């Protein structure tokens, strides 16, 4: 049984679970994270539990509870660790916290952030992993870009990088990569997680302003290509990738406009990780 408060910036998450796979997952990926002292403020009170009744033994299931309430369907017990990650994503995206949350990879260098909105299969996670593992980028998040409307700054939310199918093999080959177990037959195919670099976890208090927005598109064998796109077009594309802009009303709209006004926007097509890194290097001047 584990009962601990993890500081996964910018949130305090209380995690309770009796499941060995979840405990191993937390030990492997969250070991270096700050623990909350007794009596700290809790943003998400999370439990990952075994299935109810017969489901404890017969085709065992695992359940995710937020504040004691079960908000989505259970999964097969073998997916308990991925369920913790998905469940926590859901908490961040769905709980109204005054932050605008977008589906995007986010990295930063010297306070300047590079945002890569996530379209499925675009190669965002692989590029994110390459940038933070092989270059000196700070990983803010590989999936959930969190914008504080008050300051206009992006909040780091460092977590294990979620890799799907072919990108698992690509990232395994990076010398600095530290991967957890491979989970087969999930609703996203085969998935695995790569540990967030320790330096990014340590820098979780360092916020950043978006400077570049890059929409990546991986096309096998493609000639590398980069094109500047307008902020208006980017606005509509990012709106689609926002989880809660609608629910935030005017504040969300203004925050997104503010974020875009300081950014240059590009669309890139690349056929290999090396090409992708080269294009990003050209854009960000490194």
């Amino acid at each position, binding site marked *: 049984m584990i009962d601990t408060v993890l500081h996964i910036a910018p949130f*305090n998450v209380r995690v309770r679970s009796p499941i060995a796979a979840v405990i191993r997952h937390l030990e492997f990926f969250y070991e270096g994270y700050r623990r909350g002292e007794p009596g700290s*403020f809790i*943003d998400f009170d999370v439990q990952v539990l075994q299935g109810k009744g017969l489901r404890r033994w017969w085709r065992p299931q695992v359940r995710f509870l937020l504040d004691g309430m079960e908000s989505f369907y259970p999964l097969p017990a073998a997916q308990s660790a991925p369920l913790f990650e998905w469940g926590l994503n859901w908490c961040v995206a769905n709980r109204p916290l*005054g932050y605008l949350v977008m589906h995007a990879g986010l990295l930063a260098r010297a306070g300047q952030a590079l945002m890569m909105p996530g379209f499925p299969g675009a190669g965002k996670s692989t590029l994110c992993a390459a940038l933070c593992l092989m270059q000196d980028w700070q990983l803010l998040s590989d999936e959930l870009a969190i914008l504080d409307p008050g300051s206009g700054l992006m909040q780091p939310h460092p977590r294990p990088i979620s890799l799907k199918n072919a990108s698992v093999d690509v990232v395994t080959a990076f010398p600095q990569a530290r991967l957890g177990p491979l989970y087969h037959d999930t609703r996203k195919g085969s998935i695995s997680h790569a540990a967030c670099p320790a330096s990014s976890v340590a820098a979780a208090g360092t916020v950043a302003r978006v400077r570049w927005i890059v929409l990546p598109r991986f096309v096998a064998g493609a000639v590398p290509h980069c094109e500047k796109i307008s902020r208006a077009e980017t606005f509509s594309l990012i709106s689609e990738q926002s989880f809660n802009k*609608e*629910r935030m*009303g005017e504040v969300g709209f203004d925050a997104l406009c503010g974020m875009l006004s300081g950014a240059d926007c590009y669309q890139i097509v690349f056929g290999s990780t090396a090409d992708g890194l080269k294009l990003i290097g050209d854009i960000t001047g490194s």
Partner: protein
Amino acid sequence: MLGDPCSARQFDAEQWSALVNIARRTNLLGVLAERLNSAGVSAGPLANRHFEGARQLSERQHRSVLWEVHQLDAALGHLQIPILLLKGAAYVISGHVVGKGRLFGDIDILVPRASLGDVESRLMLAGWVSATTSAYDQRYYRKWMHELPPMTHLRRGTVLDVHHTILPLTARNAPDPKQIIDRSSYLPNFSMMRIPSPEDLVIHSITHLVHEGEMHNGLRDLNDIDCMLRRFSLVPGFWDRFVGCAVGNDLAGPVCFGLSLARRFFGTPIPSAVLTQLSSTGRGQQTTRWLEAVYVRAIEAAGEDHRSITMDLAKWLVYVRSHWLRMPWTLMIQHLSIKAWVRWRASVGSARES
């Protein structure tokens, strides 16, 4: 805490954590955010994020309610019938303080029963569709209930409940919707939209609460009731009109019970003469001490993390009582058995699939 937000001034992180948690479970986070704000109590940056989030959400919901009501007015205005907004939508549109920070899921309207067919077809033309697909549910709603099956807007996804009276037709109390419609008043800026009189607003809120089968919004509803009563009772003659409307609409019993719950939880100032008058005319439902204890337990259970047997029992009793109030026992047994059968079939089905 809702009555005296200043008592939170000395809170530490752990207490703020617990308060935010309970407020969220009871659906009062937005209301509490507004109360703390107007009392000038700062929650500190960590808890404040949650309050700010709830405040933004409620602002957004209020704006969309306003938009929906305009859409309803446009869709139904030609019918030249009174369309009353009930509960949350009425509080927000009338600008009453009870709407401030309130979060809610659907919009409730009341229309004359004779116009129900026209209303439903007009709504369908405007993009509202019935959300209930099961044939049994459709039949059950149309035959026994006080409302159409909930409708959802195809594009906007908002949920609308169309009532023709405020209690099921089979209920033990038989309020007359015509009285509520006759006492209602027009809303400026709309063609046919109206809101119930202050007395009927409170009476409906109470009736809804004490006939409800689940108490997860119980505390929020009691807060609505308390908030309205404190405001409306400042107007001379309110209590006399209030008692008159409750008795005249065959609701003295449930209203008396609801008032004692509000007093219990929020210390609502209610003249004892009002309770005496209501309980002497209340028919069928004497508010016994044990029944009140059951409701108190069930309402408190909504804010609790760990479940106890007494809480589960209280929740179950409230559920059964709501059905007992809603329909004769023969119909209730039939209905609950069919529901249990359908649930059991569904659970067996999903177990086989996985």
